[in-house]
């Protein structure tokens, strides 16, 4: 069972990395980062069940907080980029520096 959970965590993280590196849509990239962090959370919690301590639960709570912050800021940048540059493409994000 331990191996299955670890493989699931690694696969979800790998799919997150694939999405993060391959997609052009900014929202898809944010979803990729979320997938990656969720895989890491699953990995943490699986390993913590072997050590029987609460540290992993608290780490995951903080990861959830930081991820929520990152999504909020990312979506705000996405909306600004979409209104100014009229595009959803990540490659045009550097045009924001002109404004």
């Amino acid at each position, binding site marked *: 069972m331990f191996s299955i*959970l670890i493989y699931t965590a690694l696969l979800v993280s790998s799919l997150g990395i694939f999405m993060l590196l391959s997609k052009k849509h900014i*929202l898809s990239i944010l979803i990729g980062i979320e997938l990656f962090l969720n895989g890491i959370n699953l990995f943490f919690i699986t390993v913590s069940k*072997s050590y029987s301590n609460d540290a992993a639960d608290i780490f995951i709570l903080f990861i959830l907080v930081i991820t929520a912050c990152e999504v909020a*800021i990312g979506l705000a940048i996405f909306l600004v980029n979409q209104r*100014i540059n009229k595009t959803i493409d990540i490659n045009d994000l550097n045009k924001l520096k002109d404004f």
Partner: protein
Amino acid sequence: MVEILLVIFCILTISSAFTTCMSSKIIRSAFFFGSTLFLIAFIFILIGSPLLGTVQILLYTGGTLILFLFAIILTRNWDYEDLGETFHRPIRALSVSFLFFISMSFFLFESEIFIELEKNFTIGPSSSIENISFSLFNDWFLILELSSILLLATIVGCLVLLKFREEID
């Protein structure tokens, strides 16, 4: 029984995450992402962390998914037509993610710590809500306060960004 349920949830999680990657429409991708988060929360509950599962469903899945849906609604005219257009150098991304998976699997399954961890792994309630809240407000109190300041800074940052957008408009 719990182990069979865990295997089913693991398979569903992987397939849901895969569909999230492979959807050309962002709205479908967001919904499959939501289902992935739900399934991971169920896994948390099944392996004995009900608090984390509940936080994941109520705060994380609810909050993050609503944010994504609002962003999609506000930009609904912007989407790619087919799957091929959504990707940028997919072979490079596939090779990097495959390398990550293979290297992590190799180092984990070859290490002696992993065998020890696998022996000690038990499904069950090892961390109660009482223990978590006690350590959160004693040992981890400073970090909890710092993360609340981080959340406040995020709110201010988002407001500044959106104010900037209004000035441009």
